[in-house]
C-alpha cells in the first residue's frame, strides 16, 4: 500500500479527495500503484527517465559549451482529469481563443473595441507586443493565433484560473507526446483498463492547421518550421515537430526573398515556401521591419506576408494580447465580441496604472504577486509573501515610477499531485498548459503539459528552477 502514508493535507489534490480517498477517475491507477512494490515503482521511474534521454527529449543549457542537454525531470505519477471537467475546460479555452482572435483582428484594423471605450487606447499603444507595422494586415483565413498554450492553475478551493494566454510561441507540446509514449510502456495494464483520451494526433492536427492557411489554389503547398537553430533551448521540439509532420526544419539563413516570394535554398536551387510555422519571436522575424540587428529572420519576409503570398503562424503581432495588462481585459473582450460571460475566469488582477488599484497594491505588497506586464516565464516578478521588506520597497518604487508596467495578483495556492520522492510520495504543486490549434475550427489537444514544482513546497514550475513534468490523463 504505497499511498497509505500519503496525506493531501490542506491542499487541493488532483488525485485524492482526502487521505485514503482517491478521486473516482484516479481510483484504478491508485489501486494499481498500491499493488506494486516501491522497488518496482522506482525501477519504472528510472526506466522512464532513461527512455526520455535516449529519445533525446532534451532541452539545452545555454551556458554549457560542452553541449550538454538535459531532460526535463519526469515523474511517473500522472495528473488525472475527469472527462466532464475536461469538456468544461475545453469549452472555456475555445471561447477564450475565439474572443482573443477577434480582438487581434480588431486591434490591427478598425479598433472598434477602443472606440467603444471597452479598453483604453493608451494601453494598446503602450503594449510592447503591439506592432504598428501589422496595422491593416489580414492574415489568411482571418486567424491570428493558430497555436496557443494557455497556462491554467487551480487554487486551493479547486477553482480553475487562466494565468497566461501565451499567444506567441508556446513550447512544451513535444513533452506531452513523448511523456505519453513513455507512460504507455510504464503502465500498459492501466492504459488497457482505463479510457484515457489519446494525444497522438497533435502533429496531424498541426499540419492540417498549417495547410489550411496556404494561399488557395496551390496543389501542394510547402510548409516549413522556422527555428533559431541548435543553440535554442527548445531546439529538440522544433526538430521533433518538423519530423512528425514530415516538413523541412529551416533556419533564417536557409530562406531568402526572391521575386516577391519566400524561397528556401536547396541543393537544386530555390524552392517556394507557402506556410511558415515560426518559432522565433516577432522582433526577430524581419530585420527590415522590426529589429534591424536580427540574424535569425529573413529580410523582406514581411513584404511577402503583406502581399498574401505567405502565411505565418502565429501571425506577427499576437504578442499584444500577452501583455498582462491586456490580459486583464479578456473577460470584457469575451462579452464585447461574443456577447457571452467568460467560462474560465482570469486570476483577479490589479492594474497599477489605475490610481485606486495601485493604492491597494502598494498597501498589500506582502500578500500579492507583482508581475511585469511584458515579461513571462517567471521573470521580473515579486512574490510578496516570500520577499524581504527591501525587495518590496524596491518594487514599490518601480511600480510608482512606471505603473503601466506592473500588475498584481493574489498569491494562489496551486493544486498538488502526489510525486515519487526516493521511497515515498509527496504532494507537489502543478499547473497545466493545454495546446490549442485554430485552423478550420478550434481543436484542443486532450490534457496538456502538467508542469510540476519538484522542490519541496515550491510553487515555481519553470524548468529553469527545478520544475519537471508529468503526463496528463483525461479519463472518460
Amino acid at each position, binding site marked *: 500500500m504505497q499511498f497509505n502514508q500519503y496525506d493531501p493535507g490542506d491542499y487541493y489534490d488532483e488525485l485524492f479527495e482526502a487521505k485514503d480517498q482517491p478521486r473516482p477517475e484516479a481510483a484504478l491507477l491508485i489501486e494499481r500503484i498500491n499493488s506494486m512494490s516501491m522497488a518496482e515503482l522506482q525501477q519504472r521511474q528510472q526506466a522512464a527517465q532513461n527512455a526520455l534521454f*535516449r*529519445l*533525446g527529449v532534451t532541452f539545452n543549457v545555454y551556458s554549457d559549451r*560542452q*553541449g550538454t542537454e538535459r531532460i526535463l525531470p519526469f515523474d511517473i505519477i500522472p495528473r488525472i482529469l475527469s472527462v466532464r471537467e475536461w469538456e468544461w475546460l475545453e469549452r472555456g479555452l475555445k471561447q477564450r481563443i475565439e474572443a482573443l482572435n477577434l480582438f487581434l483582428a480588431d486591434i490591427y484594423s478598425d479598433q472598434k473595441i477602443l472606440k467603444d471605450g471597452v479598453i483604453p487606447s493608451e494601453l494598446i499603444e503602450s503594449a510592447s507586443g503591439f506592432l504598428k507595422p501589422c496595422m491593416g494586415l489580414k492574415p489568411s483565413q482571418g486567424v491570428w493565433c493558430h497555436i496557443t498554450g494557455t497556462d491554467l492553475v487551480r487554487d486551493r478551493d479547486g477553482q480553475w484560473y487562466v494565468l497566461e494566454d501565451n499567444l506567441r510561441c508556446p513550447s512544451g507540446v513535444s513533452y506531452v507526446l513523448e511523456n505519453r509514449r513513455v507512460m504507455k510502456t510504464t503502465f500498459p495494464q492501466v492504459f488497457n483498463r482505463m479510457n484515457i483520451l489519446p494525444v497522438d494526433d497533435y502533429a496531424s492536427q498541426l499540419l492540417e492547421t498549417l495547410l489550411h492557411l496556404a494561399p488557395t489554389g496551390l496543389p501542394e503547398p510547402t510548409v516549413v518550421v522556422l527555428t533559431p*537553430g*541548435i543553440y535554442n533551448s527548445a*531546439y529538440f521540439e522544433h*526538430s*521533433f515537430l*518538423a*519530423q512528425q509532420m514530415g516538413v*523541412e*526544419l*529551416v*533556419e533564417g*539563413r*536557409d530562406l*531568402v*526573398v*526572391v*521575386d516577391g516570394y519566400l524561397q*528556401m*535554398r*536547396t*541543393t537544386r536551387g*530555390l524552392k517556394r515556401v507557402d506556410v511558415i510555422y515560426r518559432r522565433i519571436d516577432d522582433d526577430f522575424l524581419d530585420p527590415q521591419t522590426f529589429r534591424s540587428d536580427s540574424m535569425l529572420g529573413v529580410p*523582406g519576409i514581411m513584404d511577402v506576408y503583406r502581399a498574401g503570398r505567405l502565411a505565418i503562424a502565429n501571425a506577427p503581432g499576437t504578442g499584444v494580447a500577452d501583455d498582462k495588462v491586456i490580459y486583464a481585459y479578456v473577460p470584457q473582450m469575451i462579452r464585447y465580441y461574443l456577447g457571452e460571460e467568460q467560462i474560465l475566469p482570469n486570476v483577479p488582477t490589479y492594474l497599477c496604472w489605475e490610481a485606486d488599484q495601485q493604492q491597494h497594491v502598494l498597501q498589500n505588497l506582502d500578500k500579492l504577486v507583482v508581475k511585469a506586464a511584458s515579461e513571462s516565464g517567471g521573470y521580473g516578478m515579486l512574490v510578496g509573501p516570500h520577499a524581504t521588506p527591501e525587495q518590496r520597497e524596491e518594487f514599490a518604487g518601480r511600480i510608482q515610477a512606471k505603473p503601466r508596467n506592473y500588475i498584481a495578483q493574489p498569491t494562489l495556492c496551486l493544486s498538488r499531485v502526489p510525486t515519487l520522492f526516493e521511497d515515498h510520495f509527496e504532494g507537489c504543486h502543478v499547473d497545466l498548459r493545454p495546446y490549442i490549434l485554430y485552423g478550420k475550427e478550434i481543436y484542443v489537444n486532450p490534457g496538456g503539459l502538467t508542469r510540476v514544482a519538484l522542490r519541496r513546497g515550491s510553487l515555481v514550475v519553470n524548468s529553469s528552477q527545478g520544475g519537471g513534468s508529468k503526463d496528463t490523463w483525461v479519463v472518460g
Partner: protein
Amino acid sequence: MLSRVADSIYWLNRYVERAENIARFVDVNLNLLLDAPVVMTQQWEPLIMTTGDLPLFRERYGKATADNVIQFLTFDQNYSNSILSCLRAARENARSVREIISSEMWEQVNTFYLMVLDASQVQPLPALPSFFAEVKMASHLFAGVMDATMAHNEGWHFGRLGRLIERADKTARILDVKYFILLPEVNYVGTALDELQWIALLKSASGYEMYRKRQRRISPTDIAKFLILDREFPRSIQFCLLEAEQSLHQITGCSPGTWNNAADRTLGRLRAELDFITIEEIIQTGLHEFLDHIQIQLNYLGRNIFETFFSLEKIHS
C-alpha cells in the same frame, strides 16, 4: 533538399572520417617508434608537418614531444582538427539535421563524442593503442549504421561524398608521413628498418593484409601503387574517387564521363588522371609532389562542392 542540411550531412561525415584518420596518423607513428632502434631519436614533428599546422603547434606547445603532439592531435579543444574537436563538430552537425538522419546515426555520433570526451579527461593519458582502435571502430560503426538505417537518398549521397573525399585526402597524407620520417642515414633505404616502416604505414591504413594478398613482397613502389591506384581497396585514393563520383553523379543526375558543374568536372578529371597514370610516372614526378597535387585538387573539389550546392551567399535578390 535544403543546402544547409546537405552541407551538415556532408560535414558530419567528413569530421567523423577525419577523426578516424587522425587516429590512424598518430597510430602509424606510435607503431614506427616501437619498431625503431633505440639509437634513433623519436620523430614526432613530421606528424605535425603532414597536417600543415606546424606553426600553430610551435606557437602553442613549443617542442614536439610525444605527449605534446598526442595532446595536440587528439584532445586539444582549441585545435580545430583534433579528434575531440572533429567529433564535437560532427555532433553539432548531426544535431542540426536530427530530423533528417536516422536516430541510430545520432546515437552513434553522440556515443562516439562522449567516449572521446571521457578519454580526454583521464589522466595520465589512456592506453593509446586501444583508444585509437576504439576511435577507428566507432567511425566504422557510424558509417555502417548510416549505410543500414538511412534511406540512400540525396542526403545519404552527400554524406558518402564527404566521407570519401576526406578519406582520399587523408590516405594521401598518411602515405606522405613516410616522406617526412627520416631514416638515420641514407644507406638505411631498403633495409629491414625501412621495410618495417612501410609495414607500419600499411597497417595504419588497415591495408597490410589486403596488400599481402595482392602484392606479397613489401616494396615502396608497390605500396604507393596500392594506396593510390588500387581500384578495390576501400582506403585507396582511386577507390575513394570512383565511389565519390558515383554519389556525385547520383546527386547531379549526370552520366559517367560527362559533367554539368564545376564539382563534376574537377572530380571527373582527377579520377580519369588516376585511371591512366602509372606508378612509374608518379615516382618520376616525385611521390611527395604527386600527393601534394592530389591534395590540392581535393581542396579544389571541396570548394566546388560548396559553391555548387551549399553556398548561402551567392543568391542576391
